[in-house]
């Protein structure tokens, strides 16, 4: 029998109660991973600034990659390690920004043994900015993606098997302060997603983004007083590249579907996808509905969105109150037990 593999999705920039901060979906993800043989999760689910504490069987896959996996276009191949290239935005004029990035890279190299083959600076500032939508979520805009795509391409030619991009993202300081109080979605996430999506789309390799803070931003974050507990990891360190390099270290390679071999993970290997109940409008949920992959909708993980399975008419959904219940459903599925058999009332056969 094949391994029991699920996906854990918490969309970025939507103010998810669990996972909308920094790595705060890690405990829930690790509980799921203690039951499933493998859990495919995107970086924002487990990135926690210097920390990336996901279990070994959590596979770190960028959102665009997960979309393609659910569409059946690619397979994922596990690796022992990746050679990583780093693209660093020249957009911060502060020497401290670069110093922090390089020190973080060196820390991960020397403590974890991650192979960072090169660090290339952009020739011009990337100039990404966070934009708040009508729904209150954050998305991003980039005027010229070639500012980071070009150095990423250079790193790929040098042999990089994964790319970390660290850029300055323009954020309204008021939004950042609100975020630290737990009153607004993470403003970075949307912009980060489009940067990593575009690198993965162009070069077909794993990518993840880490914000590069100016000296003023570093100081402001580290001395904001006591912040919302879920943002705690940000208040203790600005070394965002740490978790990204740790995650990319063993991120699975992206293989075109027709080149997949035994042992690779394809859509057909996915048994379930776990999502916040109010965020059913993305590709993973829609593809899961189309291809009969069980959707597990978690009500407690409230977001600023209101796109539920009921509103979309999705049928292939088990709604649970929280991730502990989701774990129970995953355990039942793995055992081949109908989760409804453990609930009351139970449907009569006739």
């Amino acid at each position: 029998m094949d391994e029991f593999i699920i996906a854990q999705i918490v969309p970025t920039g939507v103010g998810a109660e669990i996972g909308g901060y920094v790595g705060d979906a890690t405990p829930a993800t690790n509980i799921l991973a203690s039951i499933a043989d493998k859990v495919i999760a995107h970086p924002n689910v487990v990135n926690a600034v210097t920390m990336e504490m996901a279990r070994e069987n959590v596979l770190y896959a960028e959102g665009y990659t997960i979309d393609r996996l659910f569409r059946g276009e690619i397979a994922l191949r596990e690796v022992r390690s990746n050679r990583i290239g780093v693209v660093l935005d020249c957009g911060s004029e502060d020497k401290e920004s670069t110093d922090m990035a390089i020190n973080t890279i060196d820390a991960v190299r020397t403590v974890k043994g991650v192979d960072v083959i090169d660090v290339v600076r952009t020739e011009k500032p990337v100039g990404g900015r966070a934009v708040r939508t009508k729904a209150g979520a954050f998305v991003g805009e980039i005027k010229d993606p070639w500012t980071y795509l070009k150095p990423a391409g250079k790193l790929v030619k040098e042999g990089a098997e994964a790319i970390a991009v660290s850029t300055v993202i323009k954020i309204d300081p008021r939004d950042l302060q609100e975020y630290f109080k737990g009153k607004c979605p993470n403003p970075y996430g949307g912009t980060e997603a489009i940067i990593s999506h575009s690198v993965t789309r162009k070069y077909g390799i794993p990518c993840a983004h880490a914000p590069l803070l100016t000296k003023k931003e570093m100081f402001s974050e580290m001395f904001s007083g006591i912040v919302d507990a879920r943002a705690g990891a940000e208040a203790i360190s600005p070394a965002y590249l740490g978790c990204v390099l740790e995650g990319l270290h063993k991120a699975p390679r992206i293989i075109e579907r027709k080149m997949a071999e035994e042992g690779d993970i394809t859509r057909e290997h996915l048994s379930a996808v776990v999502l916040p109940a109010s965020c059913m409008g993305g590709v993973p949920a829609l593809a899961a509905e189309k291809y009969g992959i069980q959707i597990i909708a978690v009500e407690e993980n409230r977001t600023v969105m209101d796109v539920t399975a009921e509103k979309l008419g999705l049928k292939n959904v088990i709604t649970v109150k929280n991730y502990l219940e989701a774990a129970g459903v995953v355990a039942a599925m793995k055992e081949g037990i109908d989760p409804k058999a453990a609930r009351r009332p139970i449907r009569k056969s006739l």
Partner: protein
Amino acid sequence: MAIYNKRYEIKKGKGQLLDRIDAFLGKLGKKKHAIRYAIVDVKKDKLEIEATILED
């Protein structure tokens, strides 16, 4: 090349939502690629989609 976000409205209609949205976004033109999208609002007979567009 630029990356920006745009909202679109499509009719709810029948059939798989994935296919319908893909078909709609596939008609944006050769130079526009929706690299990310999500349904962000559900109205009576329409869906509002927010897409991240990479324009060549």
